[in-house]
């Protein structure tokens, strides 16, 4: 699975996710990537999220929208909302994977509960960050 989140100079957010699914998956199986609110979500009132991992668990937890909702209704910052989802709630369902997110301000958050996630980020005036392993 691959994905991207962005904030532009106008403060607008967007998210995109694309995938071939899982190796040896049953024909017709659909994961979280194309389900709005599970693996992909963007709202200028909250954040933009793209996820990767055990899609079934990300669907059950409506991961992407829930992170935005925690920011909107609980007033959590992006980092804390992502931490709760990726490191508390997903592991409780044995949901392995991670996500990238960006809010209306601040740096992107890249978080995962597996040994690694292929990832990269960059902000205005900053250098590229590229990493694979934890």
């Amino acid at each position, binding site marked *: 699975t691959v994905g991207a989140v962005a904030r532009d100079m106008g403060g607008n957010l*967007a998210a995109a996710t694309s995938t071939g*699914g899982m190796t040896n998956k049953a024909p017709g199986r659909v994961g979280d*990537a194309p389900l709005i609110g599970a693996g992909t979500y963007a709202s200028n009132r909250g954040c933009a999220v793209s996820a990767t991992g055990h899609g079934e668990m990300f669907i059950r937890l409506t991961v992407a929208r829930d992170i935005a909702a925690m920011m909107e209704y609980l007033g959590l910052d992006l980092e804390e909302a992502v931490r709760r989802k990726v490191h508390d709630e997903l592991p409780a369902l044995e949901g392995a994977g991670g996500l990238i997110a960006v809010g209306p301000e601040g740096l992107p958050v890249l978080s995962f509960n597996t040994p690694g996630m292929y990832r990269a980020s960059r902000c205005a005036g900053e250098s590229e960050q590229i990493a694979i392993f934890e």
Partner: protein
Amino acid sequence: MNNTPWALALHGGAGTILRSKLTKQEEARFREGLADALRAGTAVLEKGGAAIDAVERTVIALEENPMFNAGRGSVLTSEGGIEMDAAIMDGRNLDAGAVIGLNTVRNPISLARLVMEKNDHVVLAGKGAEAFARERGLQSMPTDWFVTERRRNQLEEARKTQAVSLDHNDGKYG
């Protein structure tokens, strides 16, 4: 908090990635692919372009790279087929588009965007999505174009153990 005016992040999948299972050459190819995709997206944002354009450009770059599990280089189903999914969402207005179960569309994320912008629905699947892609002139490729030897080998390994694998497990399943 850093109030940087624009920001971009991307991922190329996750899993139980072990450094010992990844050759230096493979790691270099992955890093190069991540860097290329990052530059594709930041080029849009640096010029004052829209976030929605930046995420599409970034994902297209990853779909075109056979190292990653999307577009060319997608993993295989238990029947040895290709079934690609994609979604895109615009935070300005909550517009969204998604496509499911594609097997010929070269860049599924661009079809998702077309669904978002040029279709009354949010999600199109299977034959209907493929037909919409043809109607809109999106490039199609034969199924073999998407399938790499690496993915065939991974499917064979998974079949032996009846495993369904995340993107990157022990460096075997991308």
